[in-house]
């Protein structure tokens, strides 16, 4: 059978290929798909363009995140078997096509096309793109999996930092009347559509550059003959078996709780800081300063992904999650009780909490590697990301539900946030206990054939190098 340049075997690195080319390849993908967290820059303009509600436009983002979780879960095994280049190409095409179909929807005032394009097709691109470099990075950096995946997943946080100013710039170029700094400013439909087309082309090209650069390590062209790194107790577990273990579902709960709690702050960041420092109906925090707070949180989110995930290589995955959830719980409590004492305290606490939120995403692939080994770690990671999709729905529902019962964000005071924040303390406590319950995977779940073959390969290699 003829081998395509996209096949996994065709992407095996030649001896001497630098492993330091793999993180930029991964970053090219993650910086592109991280745009999804900057979707809110289009909200006002899209509402005006389609003459619809904020909720109707909000569904575009929610749909994309749900499709991210679903496609990562369903296509994880395909990504693992096909290799990173084919997966990155598929992600680039889906993500780019999503923007183009979305642009067609904006240009023709067909909202369903925006749902289909950005939400569904783009969302599938998000899921494939997110997991596409993860297992490859772990295989290239078996000594520092937390550092490697932290670098890539940091890119997902960084993507929003780039996309937000870039999108505003593009919209103001295509619509000179659009001034992004003016409150309530909206770009024309034509400018929006042209911005979507431009972003689609830029992101496709950028992701294709990553696909061209990526390689699998020598010896990893075929999973059946590759030497895999086992988990800490020698585990090599397939994805279909991993989801039958309590460890997978405990980690699912851990990720779900960590993401839910983080979203509690991220979702309401700007109105929240103004409400916390409101007296007699007036907030001492200006709208510009509140926007600055959102920027601080974005930086903390991105930094936490790299710093905490790298730290996990030194202190271990379980203690790292004890920190995210245990220290996070205490910080959340302090925020609820003393957050309104000063802006420095409020911003400092919120920034550390959000850095733990980002760290939770970045450290989880290395945790999976420790538990299940590298045999199908990408596919297992894909299935675990359903926790993200679920938290993306649950987090805002919990926070908005509780806040709606006391008033409207923008008119609340610090005490009104306490029930929501204390609920998140409870959510983190559940995650904390789930993490403590995670033990090494039982041998009953190992793929014994793969394990025996792997042992033979390791022995043969050690013999050859002796």
């Amino acid at each position, binding site marked *: 059978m003829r081998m395509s340049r996209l096949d996994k075997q*065709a992407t*095996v690195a*030649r*001896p*001497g*290929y*630098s492993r*330091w*080319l793999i993180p*930029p*390849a991964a*970053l*090219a993908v993650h*910086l592109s798909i991280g745009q999804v967290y900057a979707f809110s820059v289009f909200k006002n303009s899209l509402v005006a363009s389609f003459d619809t509600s904020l909720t109707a436009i909000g569904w575009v983002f929610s749909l994309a995140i749900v499709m991210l979780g679903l496609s990562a879960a369903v296509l994880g095994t395909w990504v693992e078997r096909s290799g990173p280049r084919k997966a990155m190409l598929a992600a680039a095409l889906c993500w780019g096509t999503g923007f183009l179909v979305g642009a067609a929807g904006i240009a023709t005032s067909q909202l369903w096309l925006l749902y289909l394009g950005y939400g569904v097709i783009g969302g599938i691109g998000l899921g494939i793109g997110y997991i596409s470099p993860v297992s490859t990075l772990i295989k290239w950096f078996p000594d520092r999996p937390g550092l490697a995946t932290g670098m890539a997943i940091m*890119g997902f946080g*960084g*993507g*929003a*930092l*780039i*996309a*937000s*100013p*870039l999108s505003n710039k593009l919209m103001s170029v295509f619509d000179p009347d659009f001034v992004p700094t003016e409150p309530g400013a909206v770009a024309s439909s034509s400018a929006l559509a042209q911005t979507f087309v431009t972003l689609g082309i830029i992101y496709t090209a950028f992701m294709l*550059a990553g696909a061209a*650069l990526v390689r699998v390590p*020598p010896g990893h062209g075929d999973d059946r003959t590759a030497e895999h790194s086992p988990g800490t107790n020698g585990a090599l577990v397939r994805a279909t078996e991993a989801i039958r273990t309590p460890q997978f579902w405990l980690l699912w709960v851990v990720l779900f709780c960590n993401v839910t709690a983080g979203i509690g702050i991220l979702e309401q960041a700007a109105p929240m800081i103004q409400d916390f420092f409101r007296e007699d109906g007036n907030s001492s925090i*200006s709208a*510009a*300063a*509140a*926007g*600055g*707070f*959102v*920027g*601080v949180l*974005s*930086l903390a989110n991105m930094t936490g992904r790299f710093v905490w995930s790298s730290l996990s290589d030194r202190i271990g995955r379980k203690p790292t999650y004890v920190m995210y959830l245990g220290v996070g719980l205490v910080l959340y409590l302090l925020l609820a009780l003393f957050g309104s004492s000063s*802006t420095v305290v409020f*911003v400092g606490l919120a920034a550390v909490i959000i850095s733990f939120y980002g760290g939770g995403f970045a450290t989880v692939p290395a945790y999976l590697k420790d538990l299940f080994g590298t045999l199908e770690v990408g596919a297992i990671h894909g299935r675990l990301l359903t926790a993200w999709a679920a938290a993306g729905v649950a987090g805002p529902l919990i926070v908005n539900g509780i806040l709606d019962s006391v008033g409207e964000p923008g008119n609340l005071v610090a005490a009104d946030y306490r029930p929501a924040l204390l609920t998140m303390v409870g959510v983190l406590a559940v995650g904390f206990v789930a993490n403590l319950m995670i033990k090494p995977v039982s041998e009953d779940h190992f793929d014994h054939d793969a394990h025996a073959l792997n042992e033979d390969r390791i022995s043969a290699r050690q013999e050859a190098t002796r």
Partner: protein
Amino acid sequence: MSTTDETPTSPVLVGLAWLMVGIPLAYGLWQTLVKASALFTG
């Protein structure tokens, strides 16, 4: 595909690859720092 070529990757290529992702990331970081500074000045 060559499996016998043992030439190490050129450091220039590694540098260019990091620049490809580093430049946009630095742009995003800078823009965000400017925005974040409003918290302390605004």
